[in-house]
């Protein structure tokens, strides 16, 4: 029953994304087919990637407040993007590729920091390292912006706030081919993630290869997040709040939680993007603002439920 509702909600969100928009256009128009439809699908894929990534990262670092962007990836992506603009790199894919490269660089750095010897990954060091790398990248980014052609780069900050305006069928195909692989890795790690929630030692005694699972989950979740940031900037709160909302209905078993978080994240981002496009039409809000405006009250409600219960 709950799966039916979730799938229905997702389909409604996607339909709304395609049917609603700032411009009143007939459904068979170029705009709907080449702009709204790929944007709706991309929102779904990015939101889903963030939801699944957030759920698995929360289990990995054993912290329910973990968000995919805590690991320094957004800082790295922003730095890559700003460098691409400052160096006037040309080509339509220059910005996303540079952002992706920046995110991967941050991932490698944080991964090295988290490796405490003997192939063991320490999640607490991952978190601290992620915050440090992210802060450093943000500082370098701000320095570059303040030193270089300020007008152009100020607009780059708007990109960082998150937006799906670059959505096209090309982007959908690339993201659509890329995402299933890390997603499958995460799904395969569902049972060990359940065990990891007990702690590393109990998980080991219940048969989980803890070190391998940590490495795989960290890399898969980070790769998902890197792709999301490269394509659409930093969209906060989806990776943080959607797993918690999903847990309320599906519990903590990751075999059900991960798909639920994927669908829920996709639906939420599609909805947020529709609102971003229509609420102040013809102007558009950055979608990261809308997810924060929706996410924070929902999060506060969740916190109340937890503390009251």
């Amino acid at each position, binding site marked *: 029953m709950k799966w039916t509702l979730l799938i229905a909600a997702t389909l409604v969100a996607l339909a709304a994304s395609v049917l609603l*928009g*700032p*411009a*009143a*256009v007939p459904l068979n128009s*170029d*705009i709907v087919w*080449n*702009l*709204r439809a*790929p944007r709706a699908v991309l929102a779904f894929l990015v939101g889903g990637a963030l939801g699944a990534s957030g759920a698995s990262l929360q289990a990995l670092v054993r912290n329910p407040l973990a968000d995919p962007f805590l690991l320094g990836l957004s800082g790295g992506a922003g730095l890559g993007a700003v460098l691409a603009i400052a160096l006037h790199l*040309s*080509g*339509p894919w*220059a*910005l996303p590729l540079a952002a992706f490269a920046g995110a991967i660089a941050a991932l490698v750095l944080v991964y090295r920091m988290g490796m405490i010897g003997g192939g063991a990954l320490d999640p607490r060091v991952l978190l601290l390292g992620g915050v440090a790398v992210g802060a450093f990248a943000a500082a370098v980014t701000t320095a570059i912006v303040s030193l270089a052609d*300020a007008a*152009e780069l100020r*607009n780059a900050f*708007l*990109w960082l706030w998150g*937006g799906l*305006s*670059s*959505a*096209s*069928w*090309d*982007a959908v195909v690339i993201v659509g081919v890329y995402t299933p692989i890390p997603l499958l890795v995460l799904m395969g790690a569902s049972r060990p993630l359940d065990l990891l929630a007990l702690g590393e030692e109990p998980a080991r005694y219940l048969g989980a290869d803890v070190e391998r699972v940590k490495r795989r989950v960290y890399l898969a979740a980070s790769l998902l997040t890197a792709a999301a940031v490269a394509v659409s900037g930093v969209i906060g709160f989806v990776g943080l709040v959607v797993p918690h909302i999903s847990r309320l209905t599906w519990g903590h078993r990751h075999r059900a939680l991960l798909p639920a978080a994927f669908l829920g994240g996709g639906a939420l981002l599609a909805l947020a993007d529709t609102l971003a*496009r229509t609420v102040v*039409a*013809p*102007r*558009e*809000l*950055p979608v990261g603002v809308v997810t924060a405006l929706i996410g924070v009250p929902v999060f506060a409600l969740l916190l109340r439920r937890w503390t009251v219960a």
Partner: protein
Amino acid sequence: MIRRLFLAVLMLAACRPSDHPAVQASNRIVSLLPSFTEILFAIGAGDRLVGRTTWCDYPDAARDVPSVGDGMPPNIEAVAATKPDLVVLYNSGPNVTAALQLERLGIRTVLLDMNRFEDLGPATRRLGQLTGLEQRAESLATTMDSLTYRPLPPPIASIAFVVWDNPPIIIGAGSYLSQLANLAGARNVFDDVAAPSAQVSLETIAARNPRWIAVLSDSGTAPAFAKRREWRAVPAVRDGRFLLLPGSLFGRPGPRSAEAVRRLQAMLGR
């Protein structure tokens, strides 16, 4: 201690910029906006300039004036080092702070608005006052006013100014660029947006289907976003109907604005 504080507050209150009576015409002027630089040269005060920003590139003689940085924000030390008796700044939040700092050093500052064509006349007249060249300034200001308040020609084409592509940022009615378009006979499809610039959905641009996409560009080639698949949903992008406007001429209101209008008119007529 309280007395000193009180006195300091009084002094600060007294030091409001642009409040000095024009006792003496300024001879050593730093201009921190290209528009002001152009106006000063146009009224014959160019030889009094001792400092300009890196953006001040017109007329050619302006390049001989030493640069004090890009002006965003103004480099107080560099400005003060030129020992000016007047600094002219564009009226904005950060510049008000910079002006206060300069005033504290005993340097006279004047903040002027320069957002729309309506600001050209008053700014020109004020600069004339400050330099003692009121007559020449008046004649230039009158020319500018006649441009500003000219009846608008019927629009012959629709236009959208795209400042940034990801996310898409357009120029709205609040910007002088929109006025420039109107004077040249183009209707800004985003004249319902009151702000000078705003982020919009790509589909809005596509739906409003402007005949021309205008970009500030010195390169002469189509902008990078022209190749992006999603932008090709905008017919003007798909068909390559770009207006590439050189930044020096079109990027600032000033004495050459009439020429800018003429150039744009010619481009639209193609």
